[in-house]
Every structure is written in C-alpha cells, then in structure tokens.
C-alpha cells in the first residue's frame, strides 16, 4: 500500500470540494433539512402522545445515525461518480494506483464526509432540541463504526453496479442505501415489522445497530449482543461487496468497459 497514491485520491476530492460551493453545501443541506423537518415532527408527536417519553431522543438519534450510513455510502459511490462524470477514470486507472489504494482513498473521503455531517447534525440537534447525542457515551463509537462499515459495503457494491452497467446505473448511488432502510428499523423497533421481515432484518447490520441504540437509550446498558451481530454481519457484507467489486473490475478489463465508462 503506497500512501502517496492514497493521498492523491483524497487530494482530488478535497480540491473538488474546496472549489465547489454546491458540493460543499450538499454536505450540510440535507442533514439540516432532515433535522429541521423530522425534529419538529417528533416534537409535535411527543406533545400529542405522551406514552412515548423518549420519542424525540429515539427519532433524532436514529436520524443522526442513519445519516452516518448514508454519508459513508455516498462518500464512496459519489466520489467514484465524480471521476466518471469528469471522464477522469481512465487517467486514474492508467496510473500506477492499485485497486486497494483507490478504495482506501475513497474510504478516507467517506470518513471525512461522515465526520463533518455528524458534527453538523449533532450540534444542530443540541441547539434546536437540546438533544445531546454524545450522552450515549463511548457506546456511540461501535454504533458509528458499524454504520460506517455498512455504508462502505453498500457504497462499494453500488460502485460495482455503476462500473458494470455504466452511467445508467448512477441513480443507484442515491437509492441503494434506502433499500435497507425499512428493514433497518431505523425509526421503529424490529418487532414492528411483520414476522418474515423481522427474519430479513436479522441479517441487516444496521437493524442491530438501531435496536442497540434503542436499548442503550432505554436502559443505558451496552448492547453487546446487537453490536456483535452487527460487526459479524458487516464483515460478511464488506467481504462480499469487495469480492463483487473485484469481479466486476476484472470483467470490465476483459470486456473493455473501463475505457468507455462515462461516455
């Protein structure tokens, strides 16, 4: 692993964001809109239904954590799209960079995007709703890491689909994460789902993270079981997504897809 090459990939994205106000705003815009809209909805619901005293905490916590997964995924797949749109992929892949160095660069970018969005959302939630997510303490760290890992897995899988199917598949960069949202039980407990979907949720890492978050809020107990299952599933998800990407990359070299992608 050559760190200079990884830095090259990071630098390309940093320059891009430094020079592009719309892209920079995008990092803040959706977290802000989500937080304002769903924060006030949850405040209203809490006032009208006093049966769920921690409704706002559940909801805002879930909203902030879901954004981590989404940003982590976007950090990978949209960064790849940026090079496709710029017709720059050939320049990159004709350079000495190796695939694992390229992926590592995208993962670092994804971490940067997650950190920025997380800090923005956490600060706003604290200012607007007096919700302080860091109250969850150190337990927050494994929750966040698991969501980031799942975001990377989904992002790498999305990148494989875009590489395989070309520009037509770029919409997936915004859509794929949301396929997992209903089964992830982001805003409701898993037992709200019909039994067969609960079976599906058992195999989704994020479902265990959000169940863990609710356990932590309710009882203050570290959700070790949920986090262990989430971690194991994430290892499988990441392994599978990297395997799919490498296979698609090898296929693209055989079929001559790479030089034509983005045309």
């Amino acid at each position, binding site marked *: 692993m*050559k760190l*200079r*090459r990884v*830095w*090259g*990939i990071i*630098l*390309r994205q940093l*320059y*891009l964001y430094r*020079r*592009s106000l719309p892209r920079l705003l995008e990092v803040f815009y959706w977290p802000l809109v989500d937080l304002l809209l769903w924060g006030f909805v949850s405040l209203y619901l809490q006032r009208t239904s006093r049966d769920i005293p921690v409704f706002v905490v559940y909801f805002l916590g879930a909203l902030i954590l879901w954004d981590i997964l989404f940003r982590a995924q976007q950090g990978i797949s949209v960064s790849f799209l*940026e*090079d496709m749109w*710029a*017709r*720059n992929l*050939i*320049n*990159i*892949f*004709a*350079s*000495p*960079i*190796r695939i694992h160095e390229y992926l590592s660069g995208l993962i670092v970018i994804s971490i940067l995007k997650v950190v920025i969005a997380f800090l923005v959302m956490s600060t706003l939630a604290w200012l607007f709703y007096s919700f302080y997510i860091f109250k969850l303490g150190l337990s927050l760290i494994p929750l966040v890491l698991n969501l980031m890992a799942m975001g990377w897995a989904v992002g790498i899988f999305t990148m494989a689909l875009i590489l395989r199917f070309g520009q037509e598949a770029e919409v997936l960069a915004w859509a794929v994460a949301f396929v997992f949202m209903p089964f992830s039980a982001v805003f409701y407990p898993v037992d709200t789902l019909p039994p067969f979907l609960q079976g599906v949720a058992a195999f989704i890492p994020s479902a265990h993270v959000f169940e863990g978050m609710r356990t932590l809020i309710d009882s203050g107990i570290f959700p070790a079981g949920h986090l262990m299952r989430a971690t194991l599933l994430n290892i499988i998800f990441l392994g599978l997504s990297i395997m799919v990407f490498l296979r698609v990359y*090898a296929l693209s*070299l*055989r*079929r*001559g897809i*790479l*030089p034509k992608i983005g045309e």
Partner: protein
Amino acid sequence: MDVLLIEGLSKRFNDLLALDDLSFRIGRGEILGVLGPNGAGKTTLINCILGLIKPTAGRITVFGLDLAKNRSTVLRRMNFASNYVSLPYSLTPYENLMVFANLYEIEDPASRCDEVLDLFGLSALKNKPARRLSSGQLMRLNLAKAMLNRPELLLLDEPTAGLDPEIAKKTREILVELVGSEGISVIYTSHNLKEMEETAGRVLFLNRGRVVADGMVKDLIREYETGTLEEFFFKVIGDEA
C-alpha cells in the same frame, strides 16, 4: 533491451476480433506512429498497453517486465494522453497535476508541477479552473500530466485532434524536442497523416486489428511507390478491401 515488446496480441469482444495476433517491438527513443482507419484497433491497442483492457491472447512486455504481472511498476515508468480523456474541469491545472504527481509518487511534486506547466506554456493559467481553458490549453494540460513522471514510454492517442494547426504544430514540436532530449519512446496515433509523416520515424499500419505494414515512413513510401504517407494509406486500404 526493447522498451515495449508485443507478442501475438489478440483481443476479441464477442464476435469482433479487435486485435488479431499483433507482434511488434519499440526501442528506446523511437516514435512509432500507429495508423489505420476507424475501428482498426488503434485505441484498443493503447488501452491494452495501459492495462485497461485485458488481452484475449498474447503477451505485453514493457521494460522487460510482463505487464500482466507488474502493472503498477510498469505504469510508474510510462504515461499517456488522449484527446478523448479529460482531467477534471473543476480543478485548476496545478491541482490536477498535484493529484497525479501523488499518484505517480513524484519527488518534490510542487516543483515538478511548475516545471511541466512552464514546459507547456501554462504557468500563467496554473490557478484558473480547467473549465476556463481553451481546447488547445486543455490538451497541453493533458500532455503536461503525461510528462509529469518523466515517462520512458509515452502513449498518445490523437493528441492534436481538434487543435488548430498552429497549436497542433507547436505541440508536436514540444513533443519531438522532448523525445530528443529525454530519449522517450512514443506510440502515437493520429488521423492526420501529414502530422504523422513529420513526427513518426516508423509507422505501424493496422486494419481490422491486423498489422498490414510496419516500417520506416520513407521505406514504406518507397516500397508502396507512393509520394506521401496519405497516398500510402489509401493504397493499403485499397489493397485490403
């Protein structure tokens, strides 16, 4: 030692045989022009040498190393520019070069970026977003990127297509000077036969993925009893039809 050795290279895309058992070699400091009509396999050949397309059969050896097994090592010592591939428009020329200076692990990247910008007359534009550059300036930026790592093998896919004659001539002059001073080997594709005649010492004529002629420009013109490379081109195409 050959800089590039191609042996029995073939590439098939479903029913299309894009490259058909190509074999040739390039020595140090040689400029090889690759000629041929559209669909002859010129760009496929370049992409195979860059490792962007995996050959169906055959072997590519660069600097004595098997490309398939040493892709990253080999690519560090070569580079390419194409009129059909862009650098990101949102970045300035300097930023674009800094990105690639890191990808190619160039020592003292800032100085080298300034050096190549100066070489291609882009110093005054180094901090302007690339989108504000003219097509000639963008192509010169591509060439500056291609020279960043002081390549020993340079692949140029129609580097002067779309440039006005004066800028194309200037670009060619810079390239020829660099090849002379740094001993770079070049593979050069172009549809401009006059340009090819002026730039390349040797040409490889491809048609339907096969090598139909390979030799020094003056020898081929004499052998085929034509006055110019253009007449040679039409004669070979006519013979092949």
